[in-house]
């Protein structure tokens, strides 16, 4: 089952940590966002393979924007 990970709040994409095709475990950091003067890791909420990364470093994401898909 595909698990979509979406942005919880407006943020800048500071670092992309994982790559498409990586095996992901629950709790792994996928990307690090910068918001509220903080670096906020976005972590996987399920195990699987990283199917899609919808953001690049430097992007601005709005609340609800797709960040990654884990399958």
């Amino acid at each position, binding site marked *: 089952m595909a698990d979509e990970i979406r942005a919880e709040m407006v943020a800048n994409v500071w670092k992309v940590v994982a790559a498409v095709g990586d095996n992901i475990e629950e709790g792994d950091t996928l990307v690090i966002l910068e918001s509220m003067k903080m*670096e*906020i890791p976005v972590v996987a909420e399920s195990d699987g393979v990283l199917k899609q990364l919808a953001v690049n470093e430097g992007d601005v994401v709005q609340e609800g924007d797709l960040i990654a898909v884990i399958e």
Partner: protein
Amino acid sequence: MTITSATVEESTVDYRDPLVRLRTLFDQGTLRTLITQDDSGVLSARGEIDGTPAIAFATDATRMGGAMGIEGCKHVVDAIDIAVRERVPVIGLWHSGGARLAEGVVALDGVGQVFAAMVRASGRVPQISVVLGPAAGGAAYGPALTDIVIMAGAGRIFVTGPEVVRSVTGEQVDMERLGGPEPHGRRSGVVHITTKDDASAIDEARKLARLLGSQGRISPADVAEDRDLAATLPAEASRAYDVKPLVKALLDEPGVELHAKWAPNIVTTLGRFAGRTVGVIANNPLRLGGCLDASSAEKAARFVRMCDSLGVPLVVLVDVPGYLPGLGQEWDGVVRRGAKLLHAFAEAVVPRVTLVTRKAYGGAYIAMNSRSLGATAVYAWPSAEIAVMGASAAVNILHRKKLAASPADDREALRAKLIEEQMTEAGGVNRALEIGVVDDIIKPTETRKRLAETLADAPAARGAHGNIPL
């Protein structure tokens, strides 16, 4: 056909039988039914849970899908009243389609009496609901009126079922998506704990009955050993982190987190600390940067009021950058719902101690059990910062004109200098210590001991109010 006796026994045990379900809740051999099992649709019993006396009732899903009539409702009311008289937890096991249609308004009157009994008991004894199957209509509001709602994998809560929804609004939806563990655990906040199966749901209810029914006494000597709580935080002050390992390191043993998936930017956990049940409230920087928002303020407010009414002391772990800004939040009632948290803390009389681990800014600083709201004590770790806002944001506002007037080449240097000045003047924790809104700076390694001593020294008290499901 030949069948072995074991197969006969298994096939004759209906797991939906209320007696079977109540037996799994209580310690072996301690169950005593309060009534003779009848066709009322409800069975009630007393028993022990890890030695803690408790009362429980279960709807009878083997009869009319557990629908409740006036007789069954009276059994529930009696069970709740007995629990209040004996000051013990009361646990409801729900699997019911709601009021019995054939009884009409008589059944509705009965269900209403159940609601009234629950509200009478609210804040006087712990009320725990375990939803094992569909709990619809009136049976949905029964669990919702209690302190804690646990939902097993097959549990469903909704006011109107999929067919009515389809005929009225045209929405195509199944029972699981309408009112299963996912929507209620993550979206609506109706359910505090979701579990895979019935056995683990019952297990969570047992843990909570013991935590709330036998709260224990604080014994600071038990936490004398050093535990470096700061080891659970990242070295860089600007890096967000999951606060749950800190909550776990604080408690004697892993606690029971409530509303884990709903409003996850604040963590609310019941657990043992220095041998006593406490409620821990912690901002979680990993989610929404740890900001307070409308939902998390409401979640925390309800938790504070529940703990206060049941006499459970509070430990508040603060690392909060502020309230979440945005149109969505304002329209979602962040002012009205945020006010609930201010109200809940300000009225709470249980011992409640605050620890600022990293930062506490602005209105969110006030809301997180500050001195002004009546905290028993407020401590801070040496690196903590308490301010109206972060230094750089403050400089941009305070010195907007000065910055704009400076030559563009020098502007960044000036900004850096002003930020440094702002940090010394208004940042850190010294000013808060001077004016007495922070009582002491404590080391991470002595935190458990100091918190335990503070809670042990505070006079025990309990708020005289119900626990409205905020």
